[in-house]
């Protein structure tokens, strides 16, 4: 089989589109990770360390946040995993609109190229990934680059969403009921519903700041009748649901891995679908004000959304109970994907619980905009999501490539990363509680935190090595790994019933399933 670049660029095969998403998002992850390392090195001493220009630091910070979320996590989860796994999991030949699918991956590449231009243009954006006005409308940085990055990636995501909702609705294998779909499929559909509802709001927000900055409008300029808070509301009205756009698919990946490596049915399957996933989809649009607890919103809405925010603990709690229950009476093995999945459970447990103080409006008056918040959301979303992505890539690696990665190096990479993230983000939360504000180039006002910053830099170096080992393991495994066979994990899920790697069209003959089959029926064998 020879490699033909044209076949890849113009492909409409969902598996190749998925792999293109994976390559692009891992590249984005690398760049954003380097930005994070540069920041950590900068913060390792009080005062300037490797740059004397605060704008340089702010650009790294912008790039780290924007690229990690928009260029890595969302595309890896709703681009790569959804593309690669959904048609295989539902027994379809491809997605409903393969050419639209190709368009979405092209737009994704345009988007990450725009995002990476940050490191090339003379006036890079320095508005943070949130782009709050008035600063974003008066900065000399390039706010338009930010707006267009968000718009293009948002557009790619919307057409992806339409495509997958149609695919699952109309292209399931004969006999495959909605309630027997893989949990990952349900989770991803939930995420796409959220994208379809909320992305347009973000698009509006970032378009309006560019209008304000370049066309002379005054949407957010109070001296001409605008209001700065409008932007923050629009932005978080999307960006809180965006957390669940990341959370739902990643917990879906974790479900697939945990069920497979425990060789067990999913505990309380129906409640996971309706209570867990459904509950999150319904609540996700009613909690955005918890990002605005200190921004001067009316008191009544801050209190009201404190209650809705706390209630999120219910669907999330049901999911965590179900994941723990899936281990009960299982037959558990601990290969690399399972380690990552259990790592996600641990990180998510810490991240979720440390979110409870942040749900309380009054506690947030102190905690908001400190390193506590940064530590919390890295645990709960950033690192937990990244672990799920890495675990998922390891899990489906034999399916994608037909080869096996190196188990030993996989485990070494996992443990380095796991230890590293806990050093970095645990310390980050503790200095945050003591008052270390976020987005600081120079923390001279808080010299007492210097040694904590040095420990964090040390932890970041360890976790960086771990991630490099993982990516190297994939590259080497894809080229030289031992043949893996069609179903090395002995999974019951449909994607493992075809050959590895699956041919164009996925199945030699279209599959059909019994009505009482589920992807997790191990006991029947």
């Amino acid at each position: 089989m020879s490699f033909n670049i044209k076949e890849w660029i113009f492909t409409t095969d969902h598996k190749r589109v998925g792999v293109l998403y994976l390559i692009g998002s891992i590249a984005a992850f690398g760049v954003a990770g380097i930005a994070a390392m540069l920041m950590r090195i900068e913060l390792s001493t009080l005062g300037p360390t490797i740059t004397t220009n605060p704008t340089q630091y702010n650009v790294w910070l912008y790039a780290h946040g924007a690229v990690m979320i928009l260029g890595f996590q969302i595309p890896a989860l709703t681009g790569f995993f959804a593309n690669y796994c959904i048609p295989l999991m539902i027994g379809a030949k491809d997605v409903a609109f393969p050419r639209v699918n190709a368009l979405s991956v092209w737009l994704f590449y345009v988007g990450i190229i725009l995002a990476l231009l940050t490191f090339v243009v003379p006036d890079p954006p320095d508005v943070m990934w949130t782009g709050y006005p008035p600063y974003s409308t008066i900065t000399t940085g390039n706010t338009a680059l930010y707006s267009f990055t968000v718009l293009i990636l948002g557009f790619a995501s919307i057409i992806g969403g339409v495509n997958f909702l149609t695919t699952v609705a109309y292209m399931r294998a004969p006999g495959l009921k909605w309630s027997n779909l893989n949990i990952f499929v349900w989770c991803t559909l939930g995420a796409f519903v959220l994208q379809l509802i909320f992305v347009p709001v973000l698009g509006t927000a970032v378009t309006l700041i560019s209008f304000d900055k370049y066309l002379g409008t005054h949407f957010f300029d109070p001296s001409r009748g605008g209001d700065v808070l409008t932007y923050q509301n629009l932005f978080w009205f999307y960006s809180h649901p965006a957390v669940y756009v990341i959370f739902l698919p990643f917990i879906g990946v974790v479900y697939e891995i945990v069920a497979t490596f425990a060789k067990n049915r999913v505990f309380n399957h129906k409640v996971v679908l309706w209570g867990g996933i459904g509950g999150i989809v319904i609540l996700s649009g009613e909690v955005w004000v918890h990002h605005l607890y200190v921004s001067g919103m009316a008191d009544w809405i801050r209190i009201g959304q404190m209650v809705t925010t706390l209630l999120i603990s219910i669907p999330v709690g049901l999911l965590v109970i179900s994941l723990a229950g899936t281990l009960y009476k299982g037959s558990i093995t601990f290969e690399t994907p399972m380690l990552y999945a259990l790592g996600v459970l641990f990180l998510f447990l810490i991240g979720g619980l440390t979110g409870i103080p942040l749900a309380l409006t009054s506690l947030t008056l102190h905690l908001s905009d400190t390193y506590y918040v940064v530590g919390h959301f890295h645990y709960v979303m950033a690192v937990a999501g990244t672990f799920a992505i890495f675990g998922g890539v390891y899990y489906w690696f034999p399916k994608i490539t037909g080869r096996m990665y190196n188990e030993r190096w996989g485990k070494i990479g996992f443990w380095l990363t796991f230890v590293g993230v806990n050093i970095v983000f645990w310390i980050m939360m503790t200095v945050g509680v003591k008052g270390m504000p976020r987005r600081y180039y120079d923390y001279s006002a808080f010299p007492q935190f210097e040694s904590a910053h040095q420990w964090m830099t040390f932890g970041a170096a360890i976790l960086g090595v771990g991630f490099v080992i993982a990516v190297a393991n994939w590259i080497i495994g894809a080229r030289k790994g031992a043949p893996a066979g069609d179903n090395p994990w002995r999974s019951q899920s449909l994607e493992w019933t075809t050959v590895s790697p699956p041919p164009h069209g996925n199945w030699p003959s279209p599959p059909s399933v019994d009505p009482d089959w589920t992807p997790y029926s191990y006991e029947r064998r």
Partner: protein
Amino acid sequence: MHTENTAPGGRVRAAAAAWLGGCAAAWLAAPALAYEPASAAPGRINDPAAGWDHLWHEVIVDITIIGVLFALVMAWFLWRYRARKPGEVGTQSKLSPAAVIGWAVIPTFIFMADDFYLAANGWKLWNDYRDVPADRMEVKLESGMYSWDYTYANGVRTQNVLRVPAGKPVMLRMTSRDTLHSHFIPDFRVKEDSMPGRVTYLWFYPKAPGEHVVSCAEYCGVMHSYMAGKIIVMPEGEFKTWLDQEVAKLAPADKAVDKSAEQTADKPANPPV
């Protein structure tokens, strides 16, 4: 596999009803437990910073218990149900309908009870943060890139250093002349954004003389991290002497100051207090 739920159906239902009743009672009782009758002896001031430390401690104990329980259960499962021989599969049986409902409803009630208990506590502390004591000193704050500009009631102005008397609540009425800023005083556990076009407020209760760092907590521009200030809490007498001196310095330049003071004075509307 799933037939055992039919025979002792009556007992299952009774047990479920008892559980639900208990949970519902806990759920209803939780806010009541958190509620304390208003400690509104006139003149008593509820210090939000002390309240913060108390509630933080309570929440940390709460989440640590939940976290450790979950982690222990999971660790036990991982150990107990590790695969012993190759080719084994899990043996969990399908939940009975009663168990499905139980495993959904009971955790929901437990979480909800905890949520409402925390919400009630959080709301109470919130009221302490937002209800400013009547006997207070008010200072106006205009933030800008990159300084904190304070104006006392008598027109005295300072930059980046706020001197206050010990033992008196201090309220800041805040606005901004350019971008968003957030006046963060870690020692007093409080911050609130200031922005152009709106007036926001916060208050704190400096009890003893000392110095406290002020930092900017909302990204405001290139020099965000250098926007540090200081609150100096002085014994009441010393503060009065200092303020009188400043007023005296102000007198000769009275005319010039008046004009700009008026300008800033009529910009912000009164915040709802």
